[in-house]
């Protein structure tokens, strides 16, 4: 797995103050559990995303710890309240130095 990978964020670009936003975010990753073996019986080492964080104008609003039982290309759906216009930053980190991040801007009216 490469050190970065593709991500797709689905969220509205604008919202009213106080509105609850649904954010859907999917990341490309094999999430190799570490429990599988090759055809010749060798164990495939674990290679997963361990951590996902979302910050809203620098303030952490959501965090997930990921474990080997989670499937490939993890899809995370969560909500947050629109408080002010600004930037949401999404960051993943994991085994073998994996790090990926993306941002979305939100305009609050």
């Amino acid at each position, binding site marked *: 797995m490469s050190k970065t990978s*593709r991500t797709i964020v689905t969220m509205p670009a604008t919202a009213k103050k106080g509105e609850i936003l649904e954010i859907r975010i999917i990341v490309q990753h094999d999430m190799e559990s570490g429990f599988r073996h090759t055809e010749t019986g060798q164990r495939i080492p674990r290679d997963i995303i361990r951590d996902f964080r979302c910050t809203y104008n620098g303030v952490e609003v959501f965090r997930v710890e990921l474990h080997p039982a989670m499937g490939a290309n993890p899809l995370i759906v969560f909500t947050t309240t629109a408080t002010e216009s600004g930037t949401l930053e999404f960051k993943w980190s994991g085994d073998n130095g994996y790090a990926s991040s993306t941002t979305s801007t939100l305009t609050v009216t």
Partner: protein
Amino acid sequence: MPWVWQVFLSCLLEKRVSLAILFSLAILLPFHTSSQADPVGAERQSSYALMSPDTKAMQDDPLLNPATFAVLDGQVLWQEIAGKKNQSCASCHGDATVSMKGIAASFPKFNAAGQLLSLSGRINQCRIEHQGATPFAFESKPLLALSAFVANQSKGMPITVERTPANESALASGQRLFNQRMGQLNLSCAQCHAERAGQEIAGNPIPQAHPTAYPIYRLEWQAVGSLERRLRNCLVGVRAEPFAFGSTELLELELFLAWRARAMLLESPGVRP
């Protein structure tokens, strides 16, 4: 029949539930009377129709479909220069949204040299002849990505494989293989996917096996895979020696299945449970 139970229990113990079910099916089949003819025309149905609303939603929304990543990777590979001749796919074929429209719907087909090729086989042929590059390995990520990208250009278009003088004999071989009992369980494709399509196996509906969505993202695989991989799965399921990737047998089966699904609409890239 104590040996029957022995095999059945050993399947269960090895957590190979699908094998256990197939085995019991093989034992029960001779007594099971409600079989039907292979559905034709408008009676045919994509296995999409049998999926849960959640899985359907995953396939329908490109922002949720995990195979989208393969399509996007394929889009990048399409532009990438490779091989001794310094050519990318785009160097010859240009804009894939124009040049590849409907192409996937016509495969497998014979090339000018009289070789039966699947879409991925055709991609590899291009790599060898026109790019001077090494072919991608079967089921490798780049090959699946390019196949998914090209197949995606035909999404919503009908399969156009017809019986022609060129493919007639391969088609007949494919049909023969579809109806041939195979493996230790001694089952043919047709016994489940034609005669018992729509019935259930372990609470899961048996699909009619129309290859309308390949390459698919299969949740069980946690990855994108080809029709050949899926066919090999079924062969292992009936305890037959699976045909090798790229073998004539798999290609003939693929050709027959595509012809059997002719005029049905492509959904590539599909999501399957």
